[in-house]
């Protein structure tokens, strides 16, 4: 039996309460209230969670849905980030027009990378994308690009304030700015996976030969999937650079790419909303691990990554289908419970 999560069977209709709707409403309210409950660095971190979540949705479309493994999505995050920074710092563009442009640049880059990647399956593709992640920081540091990229010093960007005289702080504004993009891109991804193309993507993952005889142009769908996936990572990178206000080659190391893979597995392969959990995990859990080991005293201080590792293993044992899988299972149980009480 396949270890991949089974496609979402449509939820049992209750006609009473849809727990999925309740969950969505809670998330929306929480996301809107959050910036008024916290501030400063925490709010910055929440905005960064949204940016990571966008990148994770992209990677999940590619890996979870289409079955192409990428260990190099940090590289597209970097391309998007640099595209945005260069457009602002060198061409004087307003920061808010750069995410779509960065996304388009990454769409093209991803599509072009996806074409030769068509010949590579599974682990071989993982290696090729790994090479991309390894090479990217050095490419960004390449001295002939210095005039654009600022070399190893990187590029500094001014922190934008709230527009139209809105009575909110800069941090709050930037959070909403990221939230807007995240909402749009989550919606688009949800639409995509529920339609003809999304079905074709999964069909290619499960049975490429059968998919092709059903009329799915495999090469095109796979390469486009790579492009779209890179687009998401690129937009995430562009938003991230705006809120960080600084970009350098070291911002996008190999660890970022690996974190993205951790994020989609923790969040739940073939789940779109799950990517919020995955992004929360990769942004916050290293911090928590750090705090935990600090509080345990001198002897544990050197071990935050060991704690992170243990947490990761424990999570995979408890929630083999990621956090989204666990939540779905819980919601299904609730649904059965409410249906049963309604009948009784």
């Amino acid at each position: 039996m396949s270890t991949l999560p089974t496609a979402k069977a449509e939820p049992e209709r209750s006609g009473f309460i849809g727990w999925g709707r309740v969950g969505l409403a809670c998330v929306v309210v929480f996301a809107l209230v959050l910036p008024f409950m916290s501030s400063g660095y925490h709010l910055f971190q929440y905005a960064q969670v949204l940016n990571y979540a966008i990148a994770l949705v992209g990677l999940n479309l590619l890996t979870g849905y289409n079955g192409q493994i990428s260990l190099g999505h940090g590289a597209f995050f970097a391309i998007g980030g640099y595209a945005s920074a260069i457009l602002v710092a060198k061409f004087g563009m307003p920061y808010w027009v750069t995410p779509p442009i960065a996304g388009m640049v990454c769409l093209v880059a991803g599509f072009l990378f996806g074409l030769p990647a068509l010949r590579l399956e599974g682990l071989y593709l993982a290696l090729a994308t790994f090479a991309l992640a390894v090479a990217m920081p050095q490419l960004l540091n390449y001295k002939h690009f210095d005039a654009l990229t600022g070399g190893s010093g990187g590029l500094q960007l001014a922190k934008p304030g709230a527009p139209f005289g809105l009575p909110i702080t800069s941090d709050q504004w930037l959070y909403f700015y990221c939230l807007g993009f995240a909402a749009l891109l989550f919606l688009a991804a949800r639409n995509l996976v529920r339609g003809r193309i999304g079905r074709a993507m999964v069909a290619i993952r499960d049975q490429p030969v059968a998919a092709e005889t059903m009329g799915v142009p495999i090469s095109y769908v796979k390469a486009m999937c790579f492009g779209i996936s890179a687009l998401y990572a690129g937009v995430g990178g562009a938003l991230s650079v705006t809120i960080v206000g600084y970009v350098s080659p070291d911002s996008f190391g190999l660890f970022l790419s690996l974190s993205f893979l951790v994020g989609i597995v923790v969040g739940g392969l073939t789940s779109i909303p799950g990517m919020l959990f995955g992004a929360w995990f990769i942004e916050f859990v290293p911090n928590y691990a750090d705090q935990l080991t600090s509080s345990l005293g001198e002897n544990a201080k050197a071990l935050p990554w060991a704690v992170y590792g243990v947490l990761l293993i424990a999570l995979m044992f408890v929630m083999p289908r990621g956090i989204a899988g666990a939540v779905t299972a819980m919601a299904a149980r609730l649904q059965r419970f409410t249906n049963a009480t309604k009948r009784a």
Partner: protein
Amino acid sequence: MSPSALLRVEKVSVRFGGIIALNEISFDVGRGQICGLIGPNGAGKTTLFNCLSRLYTPHSGQIQFEGRPILKLARHEIARIGIARTFQNVALFGAMSVLDNVLVGAHSRGRQGFGAAALRLPATRREEAQLRERALQLVAEFGLGDCANIAAGQLPFGTQKRVELARALASEPKLLLLDEPAAGLNHEEVEHLRGEILGLRDRHGMTILLVEHHMNLVMRVSDQVVALNFGAKIADGPPQQVQSHPEVIRAYLGDAA
């Protein structure tokens, strides 16, 4: 050879290394006919199927569908011109629901691309609703209504074969290629399958090419039977005639017969 043949296979040869899998095979299948393709294991039946769905390209020969050569088409274009198939070992999309499997079968009947799908334009919704309605009809027709939302990989084998059939029909094919549809089915299921095959031809006007080892089934549903052995055609004609053909008997029973 009738000029009105829906499918015309002309001198098709396939070699794998030094092995000749198909040697100048020629036959026609007329519109609305059920043609059985028989032969011992390794005779080349599935190889021929794979040529028809463009998974293999013959070294020589020609295949025409509605008078049009198909060997220049890409694999994914075969569904659109009206050829659909099932697979010997059942190639369902295991993690997808039964309904989604059937919807993938209708891929060639849809148009929405990445952009339209992501934006969920009105035209996209309409198309999606149409595809879904048609898929639900097929699901009901094949008695799969109860498991429409269950992952196909979790179903028993006999049910999976019905899902495959429903999925193949979703592309509204003119020619249906069935690769051992009776394999692994019990007696009752085979009888049911016989009714389904005849129904497809009689109700949907479909032309069917059938690879099958279940002789009883082949002989009872086919209008025409083509027998292969070691990659060569040894007989072609009405079932009774092929059944009693000395070459066919020798192929199945050996020289002792």
